[in-house]
Every structure is written in structure tokens, then in C-alpha cells.
């Protein structure tokens, strides 16, 4: 396979302890492990044992691109990271994360499919890659700086086309909720990987690439791109008829899109209408869609220009403050968490704890040292920030680990434990654990990750998506496979217009999805849950397909029509084989759908084997009781919760834990795992991983 196209051909290995820099051939892992998360997981399996702690020098940061990265495939910008995650709770465990932007493609153009970084530098340093030149340079002048300023310093030194990964003060101070940032808003968020970089004394990585990656069938790739353009929305200024006959006017940009479609209007829209801000669209490398919104402010706005995306940072803050009331504060928050290098998803959960904590009395000004009563009273008025003492103090305290912020920096899971266990938080302190449970429904190994939305309400809507979430190595709904399930209204406003009743929506939406996924019209929604296990298997295969080929799952899931339908095609069907077609044209392989999905299954089986090696079993594939109980009664989102006032999609559909367990039983059997959720030796051998089976036996994980 030496002449396999679409890969740069080598993987960079850097040992920061010894300063040794070497490469290994990518052919060692392809085509068996495809690329991206597949190769990274395999390297993790080989290098990082179950006893290694996240902050040990032996832990590795494994960044990996895929064969589709940097090509014309839609959303080919991705870069995957696999490492032992400090954020996981109760014990650190393997997790993956993903970013867009320009870093991944540029790394490939520099000649590397990925980077494996281990060891610990004796003093703060950063890694500089310029094609064949790889250097570990001292981080003098940038260590201690916030992310945006530090990146500007690096661009001044290495040129504007150098791409950067960087940590902020949170990562330097080993916060378990620290991110690795690229540009202003692409972050390896969940996992706390910024602290792994900090523990290695590695402030940043820069890459410039002047090389190229050749394609097996360039003409085929260009034709596939033309095919892709039929599946996505219209170009600027054009009109296109999509699903349900809705006419789309705009290519993308979520906020723009929402505004055009009569959806949600945020404070930022108000600013734009008043002429105080100019909204634009931004896309990552090769993206025909552009989901990010750029903001440029009028003079006197006293806000940082930049870009955002609804579900990343400031969306939460806006949810929190009921969309339109906060305007400039939301933006300032977005900029500041990124600048300090904090995981915004975690911090939003903190506001839920503070909100309930100050109502129920377990969090006060006295025991936190923060003026918690001020939260929510901030104002931005014509360039001035009013009532913002709490606002600035809490974020800075988290990043620099001062006072109560020191405990928040350990992540919400550990914070809830701390509050519940310390008498100074009063009699009701145990309630902290209850409120934590509602937002962080997963139990056991690989817990400590909140849902993207409030899972109670937007929730996993099917037993299949519930089971899929329960099996994940990170947050439920990590990969947007079932994204349409939790909030089709917000995401695709036209639905509301054409399909008035919920029954009508199910009737129209579910067949498209189910026919494609499991070959039947019968939906796997509660109470019926037939075929749910097949859907779970497919979610995993489709998830790994995008993550290994390294394309944007957000966009690709639309184009593959696996969130109910493809909104830009009239019949609602997209092209479920789109990634595979690109894969074949780029590499010159001729892989069938079954072969590719078998490879994907190999990778999620390997991930499971690693998790089992680290102690995971079937009891960990579940949600907590508080969450189940709350879900039974949740109809309308209570005031104060993100998305308050929105009618809960789980209304009248309480989940029964027993049914989830039945789905999981069937799923284990379907994919060849034993009753305890450990991949069997037979299945591992079938997938070409006899060595993994032997390893599990040696460790006593398998009998």
C-alpha cells in the first residue's frame, strides 16, 4: 500500500522529554484503520496503557488527519485528537475531540498525516513545524499570555499562513476544563486536553505547509464536489427549493439562516439591524456551507471582532439569559472563555449550579467568595460593561485557579463532589449532586460530560440515540448523529411552517430516516423500540466514518440525510455514500459500503476494548436515576434552564431504564460483545485484531 493516495505518508513523533523527533509511516495503519480517529485510537492502544495518568509524560496527544482532510470533500477541515482525558469522571479515560479550521489540512500539506506528542519538556516550549523542519522552541514571551495575543505573536514570527494550536492560562494551570484553541473559536473543548498540553509544558504548535497531497482521481473528486453542491443549499443570491418545497435563499451561517427563515433572533441580530455590528459567514477549510458567523463591530462597541457558532460558546450564555436580553455580554463571554482557554460547555453548567445553588441556599457570596447574586444582572450599554464584577472575577478565578475558581477548574463533576462534601455549603449541599445529575446524565466510567443541550428535554428521542449516547466515550450526542432528534425546530425552522402537528412531523420525518438506516418505516421511538439496536450500530458506523475520513460530521450528517432528512433536496434524501465516494476517488481504493462500515466497526470495537482495559463494563452504559425520574415529569422546560419555555420534546415519553437495557443487550449481541459489554475474542479476531484479544486475555478482561 505504499502508493496509497490521499495520505501525506508519515506521522510525526515528538518526545518532549528527550527532544527526539522522528516519523513513522502511515502505511503501518492504513487502510485497516482508515485515518483520523481510527489511526489515533490504534496508536493510543499501542502506546498508552490503562495505568497511565492524563498528566503523566507517558500520556500522548495524538493528533490525526484523515484521507479526506484538505481535499474538496465537504467539511474536509477536521483534525482529530485522542488522548487520556483529565475531564473524565470518576477516573481519567480515553476520549476524542475534533476541530475544524485550517490546521488539519495545513499539517497534511507540511507532509504529516498526524502528530504524536509524548514526554514533558523541562521548561515551557512550543512546537514549530515548517515542512521538514520541526523544532522545539522556547515559549518565552508567549507562556502566560492569553490565546489570541499569543497566536498573534506566533503569526508575527512564523507568518500569517502558519496555523496554530494554543492553550491559555487555564491549560497552563492544569485545569481539567482547559481547551486547546485554534484561531478564535475552533477548540478541542471537551476532554480537558488543554491541561494535557500544559502538563507537557507545551504552549503551542504551529504548522506551515508548502507541500501537497496527490489524489488518485482528481477529475472524479471535482465531479463529486459538483454532486455535493447539488446536495447543499443555494449560493449567495440564489434560491433553491428544498425538502417540503421550502425555498432556501441563503447558503448558510447559522444566525443568518435563522434570521432568514424566521427562526430565533438573538441579541447579535439586534445589533446588526441597528448597524452596530456586521454579520458575515465563515467556513472552515473546503466547506461549501459555512456554519460560523463572523462579527465586526461598529466603532465604540468596545467588543472584540471574531467569529462564533451557535452551539459553541456563546449560545449557552444566550440560552441562559433567554436569548435576546444580554447582547454584548454574550459576546464578551464568548471571547473571554476562548481567550482564557476554558471549556465553555462546562462553565455553562456552572451557571445552572449557581442558579439553583443561590435559590436553595447552598451557594452564597460567603462560601464562594463570588457575588453570585450579581449573575444575570450584567448589562452592556453603548460600549460600557455594567455590573460585571462577578462576570470577570469568576472567569479569571477559574483560569488562574484562585479561591472557589480552583475547584471549578477541576470540572463540574469534581466540583459537585466538593460542594456536596464540604460542610461550609450548608445543609442542602447534597442538592449540588442532584442538579449535576440532571445535566450530566451519564453514570460510571467516562462520565463527567454534560449533554450538548439539556438532555431531559431536547433529549435523546429514541431508545436508539439513548443507547448510542450511553455507549460513547464522551458526552451523549457527541457527534450530532441524532442531532435532528433533539431540536428540529430550532435547527430547521421550515418544519414548523409546513408540518403543524407533532404527529405530522413524525409521519413525514421518520420514514426518510428509517428507510435509509434500517430498511423499515417503523420508527424506533418510544414506546416501540424494534430495530433500535440496528440503528445504534449504524450511528456508530456513520460516526466513525466521518471521524476516520475526517470530514465535518455536522455538515456530512445533513448531506447523508441521517438526521431525518436532507433539508436541501426536494425528496429529503441525501447521499449516504458521499464520504465513501470521496474516499474511493481520493485514495484509488474501491471500497464497498459494507467494507467501509466493517472498518468503522473495527474502530469502535477497538475503542471499546481500550475502555474495557481501562475498567469500563456494562454498568457504565447507563444514565442516572435522577435523570430518569426528572424526565418522567418534564414537560415544559422550567424557567432558568437553557431553552426555557420551549415545550419539551420528551413530553409524554418517559424513558424506561429496562427498555434501554434490552436495547443494549441486543446491541452487544449484534456487534459481538459479551453480556458484560466486552468485545469477544472471536469478534476481535474476525476484525483482524487478534493481538487485542490476546492483550485483553492477558489482563484478565476476557476469560
Amino acid at each position, binding site marked *: 500500500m505504499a502508493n496509497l493516495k490521499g495520505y501525506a505518508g508519515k506521522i510525526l513523533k515528538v518526545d518532549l522529554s528527550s527532544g527526539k523527533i522522528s516519523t513513522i509511516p502511515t502505511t503501518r495503519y492504513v487502510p485497516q484503520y482508515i485515518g483520523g480517529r481510527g489511526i489515533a485510537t490504534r496508536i493510543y492502544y499501542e502506546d498508552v496503557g490503562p495505568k497511565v495518568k492524563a498528566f503523566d509524560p507517558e500520556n500522548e496527544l495524538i493528533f490525526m488527519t484523515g484521507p479526506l482532510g484538505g481535499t474538496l470533500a465537504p467539511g474536509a477541515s477536521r483534525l482529530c485528537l485522542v488522548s487520556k482525558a483529565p475531564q473524565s469522571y470518576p477516573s481519567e479515560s480515553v476520549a476524542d475531540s475534533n476541530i475544524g479550521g*485550517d490546521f488539519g489540512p495545513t499539517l497534511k500539506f507540511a507532509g504529516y498525516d498526524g502528530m504524536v506528542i509524548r514526554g514533558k519538556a523541562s521548561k515551557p516550549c512550543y512546537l514549530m513545524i515548517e515542512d521538514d523542519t520541526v523544532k522545539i522552541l522556547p515559549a518565552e514571551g508567549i507562556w502566560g499570555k492569553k490565546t489570541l495575543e499569543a497566536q*498573534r505573536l506566533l503569526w508575527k514570527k512564523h507568518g500569517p499562513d502558519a496555523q496554530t494550536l494554543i492553550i491559555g492560562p487555564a491549560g497552563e494551570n492544569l485545569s481539567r476544563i482547559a481547551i486547546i484553541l485554534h484561531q478564535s473559536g475552533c477548540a478541542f473543548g471537551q476532554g480537558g486536553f488543554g491541561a494535557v498540553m500544559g502538563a507537557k509544558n507545551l504552549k503551542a504548535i504551529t504548522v506551515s505547509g508548502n507541500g*501537497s497531497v496527490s489524489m488518485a482521481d482528481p477529475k472524479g473528486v471535482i465531479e463529486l*464536489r459538483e454532486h455535493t453542491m447539488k446536495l447543499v443549499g443555494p*449560493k449567495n443570491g440564489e434560491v433553491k427549493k428544498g425538502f417540503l418545497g421550502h425555498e432556501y435563499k441563503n447558503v448558510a451561517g447559522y444566525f443568518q439562516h435563522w434570521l432568514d427563515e424566521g427562526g430565533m433572533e438573538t441579541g447579535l441580530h439586534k445589533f446588526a439591524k441597528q448597524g452596530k455590528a456586521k454579520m458575515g459567514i465563515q467556513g472552515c477549510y473546503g466547506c461549501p456551507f459555512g456554519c460560523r458567523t*463572523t462579527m*465586526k463591530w461598529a466603532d465604540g462597541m468596545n467588543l472584540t471582532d471574531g*467569529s462564533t457558532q451557535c452551539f459553541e460558546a456563546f449560545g449557552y450564555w444566550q440560552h441562559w439569559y433567554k436569548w435576546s436580553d444580554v447582547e454584548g455580554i454574550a459576546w464578551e463571554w464568548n471571547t473571554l472563555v476562548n481567550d482564557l482557554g476554558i471549556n465553555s460547555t462546562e462553565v455553562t453548567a456552572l451557571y445552572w449550579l449557581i442558579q439553583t445553588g443561590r435559590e436553595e441556599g447552598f451557594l452564597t457570596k460567603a462560601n464562594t467568595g463570588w457575588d453570585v447574586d450579581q449573575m444575570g444582572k450584567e448589562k452592556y450599554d453603548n460600549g460600557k460593561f455594567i455590573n460585571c464584577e462577578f462576570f470577570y472575577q469568576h472567569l479569571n478565578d477559574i483560569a488562574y485557579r484562585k479561591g472557589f475558581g480552583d475547584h471549578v477548574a477541576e470540572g463540574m463533576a469534581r466540583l459537585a463532589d466538593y460542594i456536596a462534601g464540604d460542610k461550609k455549603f450548608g445543609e442542602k449541599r447534597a442538592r449540588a449532586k442532584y442538579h449535576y445529575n440532571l445535566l450530566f446524565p451519564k453514570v460510571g466510567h467516562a462520565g463527567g460530560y454534560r449533554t450538548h443541550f439539556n438532555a431531559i428535554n431536547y433529549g435523546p428521542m429514541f431508545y436508539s440515540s439513548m443507547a448510542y449516547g450511553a455507549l460513547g466515550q464522551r458526552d451523549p450526542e457527541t457527534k450530532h448523529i441524532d442531532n435532528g432528534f433533539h431540536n428540529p425546530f430550532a435547527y430547521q425552522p421550515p418544519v414548523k411552517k409546513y408540518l403543524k402537528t407533532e404527529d405530522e412531523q413524525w409521519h413525514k420525518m421518520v420514514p426518510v430516516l428509517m428507510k435509509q438506516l434500517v430498511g423499515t418505516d417503523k420508527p424506533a421511538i418510544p414506546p416501540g423500540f424494534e430495530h433500535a439496536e440496528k440503528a445504534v450500530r449504524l450511528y456508530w458506523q456513520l460516526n466513525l466514518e466521518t471521524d476516520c475520513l475526517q470530514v465535518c460530521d455536522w455538515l456530512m450528517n445533513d448531506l447523508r440525510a441521517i438526521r431525518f432528512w436532507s433539508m436541501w433536496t426536494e425528496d429529503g434524501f441525501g447521499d449516504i455514500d458521499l464520504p465513501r465516494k470521496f474516499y474511493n476517488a481520493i485514495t484509488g481504493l474501491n471500497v464497498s459500503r459494507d467494507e467501509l462500515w466493517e472498518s468503522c466497526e473495527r474502530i469502535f470495537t477497538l475503542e471499546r476494548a481500550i475502555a474495557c482495559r481501562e475498567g469500563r463494563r456494562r454498568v457504565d452504559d447507563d444514565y442516572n436515576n435522577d435523570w430518569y425520574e426528572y424526565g418522567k415529569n418534564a414537560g415544559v422546560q422550567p424557567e432558568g434552564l437553557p431553552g426555557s419555555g420551549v415545550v419539551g420534546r420528551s413530553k409524554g415519553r418517559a424513558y424506561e431504564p429496562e427498555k434501554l437495557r434490552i436495547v443494549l443487550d441486543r446491541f452487544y449481541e449484534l456487534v459481538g460483545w459479551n453480556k458484560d459489554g466486552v468485545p469477544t475474542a472471536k469478534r476481535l479476531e474476525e476484525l483482524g485484531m487478534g493481538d487485542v484479544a490476546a492483550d485483553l486475555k492477558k489482563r484478565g478482561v476476557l476469560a
Partner: protein
Amino acid sequence: MDENTTKKEKFMDKPVSRREFVARFSSVAAAGVAGAVMAQAGVPSRLHAKEKVRLVPSKGVVMVDAEKCIGCRSCENICALSHEGAVGTALSRIHVLKDWREPGSSIEAEFHPMACRQCPNPLCALACPVNAITADPKTGARVVDQEKCVGCELCIAACPFYPPRIKINRQAKKAFKCDLCGGDPLCVKVCPASALTFVTSKHGV
């Protein structure tokens, strides 16, 4: 030539701002213009001991609306892929500049696609010592004859724009530039934001 080459190498090694660039290379451009004047006056010069260059105007040009650009680099990608069968920013004839070095610039909110202007009097063609840059008979695009090109990079130094719209292929040691894809530029077709348009005129643009 030695002096020019040294300057060029410095430039390639370390990206410079537009202002620095203009300051550094105005002398080169001026030398080119002066050379042309001297050539017309019949005065032999080192650069222009060759036939006079006068190209017919291009019939088309790729126009850029930076306001609409979403910074996705699809244009770069399809350009490299269709011409070289490989992807890579270094092989693209169009370049999306993302320069956020100054604190005033907005990270991720500013990108400027840079396409060849197909100049009426192209300084790159003027600078070429072997007349490898000519007007394509069909489209009028200024194209590099790969057979003739000697890879001296004088054209790159002569291009008055930053970054230069003519580039060097480091492997092949040949210059390359936008050829308007034979009259149907793929970058314009692929752009999802309609930021690029192909403007034509039979009288020349």
C-alpha cells in the same frame, strides 16, 4: 540578477507585510518599468536584451468580492487539484489571505481572496528573460509556457501585488499562474459564497 535573487529568497523565507513588500520591491518594479522604457528607446539593458513584450488584453478576469468570501479556500483547493492533480495551498494560483497579525484585525473575520488581475501590461511578462509569459490566444489569459520557463522567479519579484499572483512550483522549478482554466474558471464555479465572478469582454478587460 544575483541581487534580485537574494532579495527574493529573503522574501520567500519570511513573509512580509504589504507595506514592507512594496518598499522592498518597488525598486525591482521600477527597474522593470525603466527597463521597458530603455528597451523602447533602443537602449539595451540586462533584463530586456530581448524582443519587446506587448500582450493583447485578456478577454476575462476573475473578480473578487472580499465581503462575501467565507474563507473556505475551496477555490485554492480546486485550482491545485484541477491543474496539478494534488491539493495544497502552495500549488494554487489563487490565494486566500488570512492575515490577523495586528491587534486591530479580527481573527477569523477577515479573508481576502487574491486572484490574478490579468494586467493589461503585465510586469511579470515584462520581467521574463525568455518571454515565457504570453497571452493565451483563446482567452487572453497571461499564461506561462512551461517549456520555456527557466524558473528564475523574476516574474514573481516583478508582480506588483502581495502576495504575488504568479508562483513557483518548488518541485518542478517552474513558474505558474492563473490561466482562467481555458475560459471557464473552476474557482468561480466552486465558490459557495458567490464571492468570485468571471468578468469577460470581447474588447478586453
